[in-house]
């Protein structure tokens, strides 16, 4: 790995320490990231908009401030990207849709304001499944590709937000997770992605129509970085009436290398279901051994209602979103949507209100079962993805038969949706690589607002393994793809 490669793949925390000590210039890092994006993103398509000039100007300002002794903290001078679902003042925000191609907001999302205040540098707006829905077949701003093997998908819907930190384009990203849209791309790209507790992070200024489940969370190369980003964006915001007034802990300061005294519970239905890939199963068994060696007690639990999570979320959150899209665009701009988006939204439009409300009651039962189970342990465990990321064409959600609906839409989401339904914090982090060098991922979930336990388990596991030290060799993988 070259010197520049080492720079790109340092953790954000380490980059920040070097900047604090004036051993690394924000200008040097941002310029290097922009050059790397220029070199490789024509294939990977992590970004819809790259904010080069603005980022360089901010980097120069950060450099001046740090030199003058006005160091703002661990994100000062750190380049980040955001899913193009988060509004940015004066910068195009497309939602990954042709329909929003000319949308330029007049305000920043609350999380952007907070990262700006922390001195972080917005480097670009990241590619996504259309309107943050999974299931896009044709991406209007380019097909996002997995940096470990560009013939494979990077998952979604925060696709670019997963690609960018993994490829060394930025030091971290912000994504949006309704059912698994942060955790799935984190898993597919071999990085760390957190869905925080609902209410932990303000949703203000983002396009968040799935109002009972939408959350914003960081995607980073290490757990410590994730903790740093979360602390920067979390906290009450009166503009989001559902944001919590609870104090925000210093998550990074609470990280520990051991798990003594913790009881971790493997969720049977989400870990060993029919269809789990043999290499995921082996990686999960090995991960459990590591967690035991770190001092945790590991047991197995059953969440019998978890299997209902995917249809319940589609019946409810999809309907919430569809209700916002019908009048604005679905009636008049049908052909401008991708077929996966428009058919999914149309289905959401046609769910009767009586069914919707019964589904909301069923969601309460699913959530109750999860919370009751968490009363007997500190955290729940399962893989974040049941299969390593597949080839792009095989993963497209083309629904031609009822079997397609089962296999391509419902079953593949079982590993992330239950925790979304409970609105609890859940993190995905690397737990190995398949023989084809594509990542597999561990998921850790805990009680509401107990992000500290999620981070503690994930950090201890990460430090006891070396998966986070692997990075895609873009010169090799993209050259092979071109050949």
């Amino acid at each position, binding site marked *: 790995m070259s010197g520049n490669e080492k720079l790109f793949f340092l953790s954000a925390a380490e980059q920040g320490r070097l900047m604090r000590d004036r051993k690394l210039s924000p200008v040097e890092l941002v310029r290097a990231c922009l050059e790397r994006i220029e070199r490789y993103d024509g294939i990977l398509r992590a970004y819809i908009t790259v904010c080069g000039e603005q980022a360089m100007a901010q980097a120069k300002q950060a450099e001046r401030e740090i030199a003058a002794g006005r160091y703002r903290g661990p994100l000062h001078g750190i380049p980040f990207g955001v899913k193009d679902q988060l509004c940015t003042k004066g910068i195009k925000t497309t939602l990954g849709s042709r329909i929003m191609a000319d949308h330029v907001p007049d305000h920043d999302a609350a999380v952007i304001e907070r990262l700006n205040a922390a001195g972080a540098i917005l480097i670009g707006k990241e590619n996504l499944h259309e309107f943050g829905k999974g299931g896009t077949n044709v991406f209007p701003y380019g097909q996002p590709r997995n940096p470990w093997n560009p013939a494979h998908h990077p998952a979604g819907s925060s696709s670019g937000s997963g690609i960018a930190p993994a490829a060394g384009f930025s030091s971290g990203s912000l994504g949006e997770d309704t059912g698994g849209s942060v955790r799935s791309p984190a898993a597919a790209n071999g990085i760390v992605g957190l869905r925080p507790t609902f209410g932990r992070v303000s949703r203000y200024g983002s396009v968040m129509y799935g109002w009972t489940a939408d959350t914003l969370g960081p995607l980073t190369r290490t757990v410590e970085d994730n903790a740093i980003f979360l602390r920067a964006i979390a906290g009450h915001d009166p503009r989001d009436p559902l944001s919590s007034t609870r104090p925000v802990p210093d998550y990074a300061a609470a990280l520990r290398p051991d798990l003594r005294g913790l009881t971790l519970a493997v969720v049977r239905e989400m870990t060993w279901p029919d269809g789990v890939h043999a290499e995921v199963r082996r990686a999960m068994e090995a991960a459990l051994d590591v967690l035991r060696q770190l001092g945790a007690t590991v047991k197995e639990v059953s969440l019998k209602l978890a299997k209902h999570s995917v249809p319940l979320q589609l019946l409810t959150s999809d309907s919430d979103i569809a209700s916002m899209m019908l009048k604005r665009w679905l009636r008049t701009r049908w052909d401008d949507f991708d077929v996966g988006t428009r058919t999914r939204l149309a289905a959401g439009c046609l769910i009767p209100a009586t069914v919707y409300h019964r589904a909301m009651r069923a969601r309460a039962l699913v959530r109750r079962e999860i919370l009751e189970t968490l009363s007997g342990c500190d955290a729940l465990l399962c893989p974040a993805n049941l299969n390593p990321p597949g080839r792009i064409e095989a993963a497209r959600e083309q629904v031609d038969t009822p079997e397609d*609906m089962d296999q391509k839409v419902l079953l593949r989401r079982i590993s992330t949706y239950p925790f979304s339904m409970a609105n609890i914090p859940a993190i995905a982090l690397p737990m190995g690589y398949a023989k084809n060098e594509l990542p597999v991922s561990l998921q850790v979930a805990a009680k509401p607002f107990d992000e500290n336990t999620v981070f503690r388990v994930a950090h201890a596991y990460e430090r006891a393994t070396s998966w986070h030290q692997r990075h895609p060799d873009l010169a090799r993988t993209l050259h092979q793809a071109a050949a």
Partner: protein
Amino acid sequence: MMLTRDQVQVLAAAVDLEIPEQDLDNVTIRVAALLSAMENIEAELGQDMDAVEPLPPVFPREDF
């Protein structure tokens, strides 16, 4: 649940949505699958669902 293309078109018309022919099968499969799933959930959990209120997305009183 069995749904026909005609039934889906009627449902769509009720919300003033016209689904083009080329997407009608796709939408029909999706709606039928979701309503079928809900039938199964009702069969398994219906009584318990009667006893709970719909989900609030936040945690106003719980001891966490």
